[in-house]
Protein backbone atom coordinates (compact mmCIF):
# COMPACT_ATOMS: atom_id res chain seq x y z
CA UNK A 1 0.00 0.00 0.00
CA UNK A 2 2.85 2.31 0.89
CA UNK A 3 4.38 1.68 -2.52
CA UNK A 4 1.12 2.40 -4.29
CA UNK A 5 0.72 5.66 -2.42
CA UNK A 6 4.26 6.60 -3.25
CA UNK A 7 3.68 5.88 -6.95
CA UNK A 8 0.58 8.00 -6.95
CA UNK A 9 2.51 10.83 -5.40
CA UNK A 10 5.11 10.79 -8.15
CA UNK A 11 2.57 10.60 -10.97
CA UNK A 12 1.11 14.08 -11.28
CA UNK A 13 -1.97 14.53 -13.40
CA UNK A 14 -1.82 16.08 -16.85
CA UNK A 15 -3.48 19.23 -15.52
CA UNK A 16 -0.84 19.60 -12.82
CA UNK A 17 1.96 19.13 -15.31
CA UNK A 18 0.43 21.61 -17.74
CA UNK A 19 0.21 24.11 -14.91
CA UNK A 20 3.88 23.59 -14.08
CA UNK A 21 4.86 23.99 -17.73
CA UNK A 22 2.95 27.24 -17.93
CA UNK A 23 4.98 28.45 -14.96
CA UNK A 24 8.15 27.76 -16.91
CA UNK A 25 8.99 24.22 -15.80
CA UNK A 26 10.34 22.60 -18.96
CA UNK A 27 11.10 19.34 -17.13
CA UNK A 28 7.39 18.96 -16.49
CA UNK A 29 6.89 19.05 -20.23
CA UNK A 30 9.47 16.29 -20.51
CA UNK A 31 7.28 14.15 -18.25
CA UNK A 32 4.23 14.86 -20.39
CA UNK A 33 6.14 13.96 -23.53
CA UNK A 34 7.33 10.66 -22.11
CA UNK A 35 3.80 9.84 -21.08
CA UNK A 36 2.39 10.49 -24.54
CA UNK A 37 5.28 9.16 -26.58
CA UNK A 38 4.41 5.79 -25.10
CA UNK A 39 0.69 6.27 -25.65
CA UNK A 40 0.59 7.88 -29.10
CA UNK A 41 3.66 6.37 -30.74
CA UNK A 42 1.54 3.50 -31.98
CA UNK A 43 -0.79 5.70 -34.01
CA UNK A 44 2.01 7.70 -35.63
CA UNK A 45 3.98 4.57 -36.44
CA UNK A 46 1.10 2.71 -38.06
CA UNK A 47 -0.17 5.73 -39.97
CA UNK A 48 3.21 6.72 -41.37
CA UNK A 49 4.59 3.20 -41.57
CA UNK A 50 8.07 4.26 -40.61
CA UNK A 51 9.78 4.67 -37.26
CA UNK A 52 11.74 7.82 -38.07
CA UNK A 53 8.70 9.48 -39.66
CA UNK A 54 6.68 8.61 -36.56
CA UNK A 55 9.34 10.15 -34.34
CA UNK A 56 9.33 13.29 -36.46
CA UNK A 57 5.54 13.54 -36.25
CA UNK A 58 5.67 13.23 -32.48
CA UNK A 59 8.46 15.78 -32.19
CA UNK A 60 6.52 18.24 -34.32
CA UNK A 61 3.31 17.65 -32.38
CA UNK A 62 5.05 18.09 -29.03
CA UNK A 63 6.74 21.28 -30.24
CA UNK A 64 3.52 22.73 -31.63
CA UNK A 65 1.62 21.81 -28.49
CA UNK A 66 4.19 23.50 -26.28
CA UNK A 67 4.11 26.67 -28.33
CA UNK A 68 0.31 26.68 -28.27
CA UNK A 69 -0.12 25.58 -24.68
CA UNK A 70 -1.84 28.77 -23.62
CA UNK A 71 -4.68 27.80 -25.94
CA UNK A 72 -5.20 24.43 -24.25
CA UNK A 73 -8.33 25.55 -22.47
CA UNK A 74 -8.94 22.29 -20.61
CA UNK A 75 -5.61 21.06 -19.24
CA UNK A 76 -7.33 18.00 -17.80
CA UNK A 77 -8.05 17.05 -21.41
CA UNK A 78 -4.49 17.66 -22.56
CA UNK A 79 -4.30 14.16 -24.04
CA UNK A 80 -7.22 14.69 -26.41
CA UNK A 81 -5.92 18.12 -27.39
CA UNK A 82 -2.44 16.77 -28.07
CA UNK A 83 -3.77 13.79 -30.00
CA UNK A 84 -5.66 16.13 -32.30
CA UNK A 85 -2.47 18.00 -33.07
CA UNK A 86 -0.69 14.71 -33.70
CA UNK A 87 -3.40 13.41 -36.02
CA UNK A 88 -3.20 16.62 -38.04
CA UNK A 89 0.57 16.47 -38.16
CA UNK A 90 0.57 12.83 -39.25
CA UNK A 91 -1.95 13.61 -41.97
CA UNK A 92 0.19 16.43 -43.26
CA UNK A 93 3.33 14.31 -43.26
CA UNK A 94 1.55 11.42 -44.94
CA UNK A 95 0.24 13.70 -47.65
CA UNK A 96 3.53 15.47 -48.19
CA UNK A 97 5.79 12.52 -48.36
CA UNK A 98 3.61 9.69 -49.45
CA UNK A 99 4.38 6.39 -47.98
CA UNK A 100 7.70 4.83 -48.69
CA UNK A 101 7.50 1.65 -50.67
CA UNK A 102 10.72 0.27 -49.34
CA UNK A 103 9.90 -0.15 -45.72
CA UNK A 104 12.34 -0.47 -42.93
CA UNK A 105 12.12 -3.48 -40.68
CA UNK A 106 9.41 -3.06 -38.06
CA UNK A 107 10.72 -1.94 -34.73
CA UNK A 108 11.07 -4.53 -32.00
CA UNK A 109 8.13 -3.51 -29.89
CA UNK A 110 5.85 -3.69 -32.87
CA UNK A 111 7.15 -7.11 -33.72
CA UNK A 112 6.59 -8.49 -30.27
CA UNK A 113 2.96 -9.28 -30.92
CA UNK A 114 1.25 -11.41 -28.36
CA UNK A 115 -0.75 -13.56 -30.72
CA UNK A 116 -3.87 -14.28 -28.78
CA UNK A 117 -6.03 -15.37 -31.67
CA UNK A 118 -4.81 -18.16 -33.93
CA UNK A 119 -6.22 -16.34 -36.94
CA UNK A 120 -3.74 -13.51 -36.45
CA UNK A 121 -0.95 -15.84 -37.48
CA UNK A 122 -2.28 -15.58 -41.01
CA UNK A 123 -1.64 -11.88 -41.02
CA UNK A 124 1.87 -10.80 -40.21
CA UNK A 125 2.73 -7.32 -39.20
CA UNK A 126 4.78 -6.67 -42.28
CA UNK A 127 1.97 -7.84 -44.51
CA UNK A 128 -0.58 -5.65 -42.76
CA UNK A 129 1.66 -2.62 -43.13
CA UNK A 130 2.10 -3.29 -46.81
CA UNK A 131 -1.66 -3.35 -47.16
CA UNK A 132 -2.07 -0.15 -45.17
CA UNK A 133 0.54 1.52 -47.34
CA UNK A 134 -1.70 1.00 -50.35
CA UNK A 135 -4.64 2.84 -48.81
CA UNK A 136 -5.19 6.52 -49.39
CA UNK A 137 -4.23 8.43 -46.21
CA UNK A 138 -7.84 9.25 -45.28
CA UNK A 139 -8.81 5.57 -45.33
CA UNK A 140 -5.75 4.52 -43.39
CA UNK A 141 -6.44 7.23 -40.82
CA UNK A 142 -10.08 6.18 -40.45
CA UNK A 143 -9.22 2.48 -40.08
CA UNK A 144 -6.55 3.15 -37.46
CA UNK A 145 -8.67 5.54 -35.44
CA UNK A 146 -11.67 3.21 -35.48
CA UNK A 147 -10.17 -0.23 -35.13
CA UNK A 148 -6.76 0.27 -33.55
CA UNK A 149 -7.37 3.34 -31.38
CA UNK A 150 -10.96 2.15 -30.88
CA UNK A 151 -12.59 5.57 -31.03
CA UNK A 152 -16.27 6.09 -31.65
CA UNK A 153 -17.35 7.77 -34.88
CA UNK A 154 -18.42 10.76 -32.83
CA UNK A 155 -14.91 11.06 -31.37
CA UNK A 156 -13.37 10.59 -34.80
CA UNK A 157 -15.55 13.33 -36.26
CA UNK A 158 -14.51 15.72 -33.50
CA UNK A 159 -10.88 14.83 -34.05
CA UNK A 160 -10.72 14.98 -37.82
CA UNK A 161 -13.40 17.50 -38.72
CA UNK A 162 -14.96 15.01 -41.14
CA UNK A 163 -18.61 13.95 -40.93
CA UNK A 164 -19.53 10.61 -39.38
CA UNK A 165 -21.00 9.25 -42.59
CA UNK A 166 -17.86 10.16 -44.52
CA UNK A 167 -15.75 8.43 -41.90
CA UNK A 168 -17.89 5.29 -42.07
CA UNK A 169 -17.49 5.27 -45.81
CA UNK A 170 -13.73 5.57 -45.48
CA UNK A 171 -13.63 2.58 -43.12
CA UNK A 172 -15.80 0.59 -45.49
CA UNK A 173 -13.60 1.47 -48.46
CA UNK A 174 -10.50 0.61 -46.43
CA UNK A 175 -12.01 -2.75 -45.60
CA UNK A 176 -12.83 -3.51 -49.23
CA UNK A 177 -9.39 -2.46 -50.38
CA UNK A 178 -7.56 -4.41 -47.68
CA UNK A 179 -9.55 -7.55 -48.35
CA UNK A 180 -8.64 -7.25 -52.00
CA UNK A 181 -4.99 -6.68 -51.21
CA UNK A 182 -4.45 -9.10 -48.37
CA UNK A 183 -7.15 -11.63 -48.92
CA UNK A 184 -9.27 -12.89 -46.08
CA UNK A 185 -8.69 -16.51 -45.14
CA UNK A 186 -11.97 -16.48 -43.26
CA UNK A 187 -14.08 -15.17 -46.12
CA UNK A 188 -16.76 -17.55 -47.27
Amino acid sequence: MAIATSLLQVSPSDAELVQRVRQGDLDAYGLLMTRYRLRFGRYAYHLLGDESDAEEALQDAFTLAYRSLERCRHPERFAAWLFRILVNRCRTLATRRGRREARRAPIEAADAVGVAHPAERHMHHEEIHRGLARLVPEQREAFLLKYVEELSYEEMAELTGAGESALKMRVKRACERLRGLLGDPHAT
Partner: protein
Amino acid sequence: MRPDDGLDPEQHAFLERLAAPLRTPVELSERVERTVLARLRADERPARGWPFRPLAAAAMAAGIAAAFAGGVLVGRRSAVPAAPDRGAHTVEFALRTAADSAVTLVGDFNDWDPRATPLHPGAGGVWTVTVPLRPGRYRYTFIVDGTRWRRDPAAPRALEDDFGTPTSVITVAQR
Protein backbone atom coordinates in the same frame (compact mmCIF):
# COMPACT_ATOMS: atom_id res chain seq x y z
CA MET B 1 -16.53 -3.51 -30.51
CA ARG B 2 -19.95 -3.44 -32.12
CA PRO B 3 -20.02 -2.82 -35.84
CA ASP B 4 -21.71 0.56 -36.18
CA ASP B 5 -20.36 1.46 -39.59
CA GLY B 6 -22.54 -0.51 -41.93
CA LEU B 7 -20.04 -3.31 -42.30
CA ASP B 8 -21.35 -6.82 -42.40
CA PRO B 9 -20.15 -9.13 -39.58
CA GLU B 10 -17.60 -10.78 -41.87
CA GLN B 11 -16.02 -7.46 -42.84
CA HIS B 12 -16.01 -6.36 -39.23
CA ALA B 13 -14.33 -9.59 -38.15
CA PHE B 14 -11.71 -9.14 -40.86
CA LEU B 15 -10.83 -5.64 -39.68
CA GLU B 16 -10.74 -6.84 -36.08
CA ARG B 17 -8.26 -9.55 -37.00
CA LEU B 18 -6.16 -6.99 -38.82
CA ALA B 19 -6.26 -4.47 -35.99
CA ALA B 20 -5.56 -6.84 -33.09
CA PRO B 21 -1.80 -7.16 -33.62
CA LEU B 22 -1.53 -3.42 -34.28
CA ARG B 23 -2.89 -2.60 -30.81
CA THR B 24 0.36 -3.60 -29.19
CA PRO B 25 2.05 -0.49 -27.77
CA VAL B 26 4.82 0.91 -29.94
CA GLU B 27 7.62 2.45 -27.98
CA LEU B 28 9.49 5.01 -30.01
CA SER B 29 12.90 6.18 -28.89
CA GLU B 30 13.23 8.66 -26.07
CA ARG B 31 15.29 10.81 -28.40
CA VAL B 32 11.86 12.26 -29.26
CA GLU B 33 11.78 14.09 -25.92
CA ARG B 34 15.47 14.92 -26.04
CA THR B 35 15.14 16.52 -29.47
CA VAL B 36 12.07 18.53 -28.51
CA LEU B 37 13.58 19.72 -25.24
CA ALA B 38 16.71 20.83 -27.08
CA ARG B 39 14.53 22.66 -29.60
CA LEU B 40 12.52 24.38 -26.88
CA ARG B 41 15.58 25.32 -24.85
CA ALA B 42 17.06 26.87 -27.98
CA ASP B 43 13.82 28.86 -28.35
CA GLU B 44 14.30 30.25 -24.87
CA ARG B 45 17.59 31.86 -25.93
CA PRO B 46 16.02 34.41 -28.26
CA ALA B 47 18.59 36.71 -29.75
CA ARG B 48 21.58 34.40 -29.55
CA GLY B 49 20.20 31.69 -31.81
CA TRP B 50 18.98 34.00 -34.53
CA PRO B 51 21.40 35.01 -37.21
CA PHE B 52 20.96 38.59 -38.32
CA ARG B 53 19.27 38.84 -41.69
CA PRO B 54 18.89 42.41 -42.87
CA LEU B 55 15.99 41.75 -45.26
CA ALA B 56 13.98 39.66 -42.85
CA ALA B 57 14.66 42.05 -40.01
CA ALA B 58 13.63 44.98 -42.16
CA ALA B 59 10.46 43.24 -43.29
CA MET B 60 9.54 42.32 -39.72
CA ALA B 61 10.21 45.84 -38.58
CA ALA B 62 7.99 47.11 -41.39
CA GLY B 63 5.21 44.80 -40.25
CA ILE B 64 5.48 46.00 -36.70
CA ALA B 65 5.52 49.61 -37.82
CA ALA B 66 2.45 49.04 -39.99
CA ALA B 67 0.64 47.51 -37.05
CA PHE B 68 1.31 50.54 -34.92
CA ALA B 69 0.09 52.71 -37.77
CA GLY B 70 -3.27 50.95 -37.84
CA GLY B 71 -2.77 47.86 -40.01
CA VAL B 72 -0.61 44.80 -40.38
CA LEU B 73 0.85 44.11 -43.79
CA VAL B 74 0.37 40.50 -44.74
CA GLY B 75 0.86 39.05 -48.17
CA ARG B 76 -0.59 41.49 -50.64
CA ARG B 77 -3.22 42.86 -48.35
CA SER B 78 -3.41 44.91 -45.21
CA ALA B 79 -5.72 44.41 -42.29
CA VAL B 80 -7.07 46.60 -39.56
CA PRO B 81 -7.12 45.97 -35.83
CA ALA B 82 -10.89 45.79 -35.62
CA ALA B 83 -11.34 42.48 -33.88
CA PRO B 84 -14.31 40.68 -32.35
CA ASP B 85 -11.97 39.41 -29.63
CA ARG B 86 -10.70 42.26 -27.50
CA GLY B 87 -7.03 42.68 -28.13
CA ALA B 88 -7.09 40.74 -31.42
CA HIS B 89 -6.33 42.15 -34.83
CA THR B 90 -8.20 41.08 -37.93
CA VAL B 91 -5.54 39.92 -40.33
CA GLU B 92 -6.13 39.12 -43.98
CA PHE B 93 -3.87 36.53 -45.56
CA ALA B 94 -3.66 36.46 -49.34
CA LEU B 95 -1.88 34.33 -51.89
CA ARG B 96 -1.87 34.60 -55.66
CA THR B 97 -1.62 31.08 -57.05
CA ALA B 98 -2.89 28.88 -59.84
CA ALA B 99 -4.56 26.44 -57.48
CA ASP B 100 -6.82 23.80 -58.99
CA SER B 101 -9.10 23.20 -56.06
CA ALA B 102 -8.14 24.60 -52.69
CA VAL B 103 -5.78 26.74 -50.71
CA THR B 104 -5.63 26.46 -46.94
CA LEU B 105 -3.72 28.31 -44.26
CA VAL B 106 -1.91 26.45 -41.51
CA GLY B 107 0.03 27.95 -38.66
CA ASP B 108 0.66 28.29 -34.97
CA PHE B 109 -2.78 29.87 -34.61
CA ASN B 110 -4.77 26.84 -35.84
CA ASP B 111 -2.63 23.88 -34.66
CA TRP B 112 -1.41 23.48 -38.25
CA ASP B 113 -4.75 21.94 -39.09
CA PRO B 114 -5.09 21.93 -42.91
CA ARG B 115 -8.88 21.89 -42.66
CA ALA B 116 -9.31 24.73 -40.21
CA THR B 117 -8.72 27.80 -42.38
CA PRO B 118 -9.55 27.51 -46.08
CA LEU B 119 -8.92 30.54 -48.30
CA HIS B 120 -11.55 31.85 -50.66
CA PRO B 121 -10.83 32.31 -54.36
CA GLY B 122 -11.06 35.81 -55.77
CA ALA B 123 -10.33 37.71 -58.94
CA GLY B 124 -6.96 37.32 -60.59
CA GLY B 125 -6.13 34.05 -58.87
CA VAL B 126 -5.87 35.70 -55.46
CA TRP B 127 -7.06 33.56 -52.55
CA THR B 128 -7.83 35.25 -49.23
CA VAL B 129 -8.94 34.56 -45.70
CA THR B 130 -9.36 36.74 -42.63
CA VAL B 131 -8.16 35.54 -39.24
CA PRO B 132 -8.35 37.25 -35.84
CA LEU B 133 -4.94 37.21 -34.19
CA ARG B 134 -3.86 38.43 -30.80
CA PRO B 135 -0.56 40.26 -30.55
CA GLY B 136 2.31 37.83 -30.88
CA ARG B 137 4.53 36.07 -33.32
CA TYR B 138 3.12 33.33 -35.52
CA ARG B 139 4.63 30.99 -38.10
CA TYR B 140 2.42 29.95 -41.00
CA THR B 141 2.33 28.65 -44.53
CA PHE B 142 -0.17 27.93 -47.29
CA ILE B 143 -1.10 24.49 -48.64
CA VAL B 144 -2.13 24.53 -52.30
CA ASP B 145 -4.38 21.74 -53.58
CA GLY B 146 -3.76 19.72 -50.45
CA THR B 147 -0.18 18.86 -51.25
CA ARG B 148 2.03 21.82 -52.16
CA TRP B 149 3.40 23.97 -49.34
CA ARG B 150 3.88 27.60 -50.29
CA ARG B 151 5.57 30.18 -48.15
CA ASP B 152 4.02 33.65 -48.24
CA PRO B 153 6.23 35.43 -50.79
CA ALA B 154 5.48 38.81 -49.25
CA ALA B 155 6.32 37.93 -45.66
CA PRO B 156 9.57 37.16 -43.87
CA ARG B 157 10.69 33.55 -43.85
CA ALA B 158 10.58 31.97 -40.40
CA LEU B 159 14.13 31.90 -39.14
CA GLU B 160 13.65 28.66 -37.22
CA ASP B 161 12.25 26.57 -40.05
CA ASP B 162 12.50 23.48 -37.92
CA PHE B 163 10.15 21.23 -39.87
CA GLY B 164 12.01 21.67 -43.11
CA THR B 165 8.93 23.23 -44.66
CA PRO B 166 8.68 26.65 -46.27
CA THR B 167 7.33 28.79 -43.46
CA SER B 168 6.64 32.50 -43.09
CA VAL B 169 6.28 34.54 -39.98
CA ILE B 170 4.00 37.37 -38.95
CA THR B 171 4.39 39.55 -35.89
CA VAL B 172 1.17 41.15 -34.71
CA ALA B 173 2.01 44.14 -32.56
CA GLN B 174 0.15 45.48 -29.54
CA ARG B 175 -2.20 48.29 -30.43
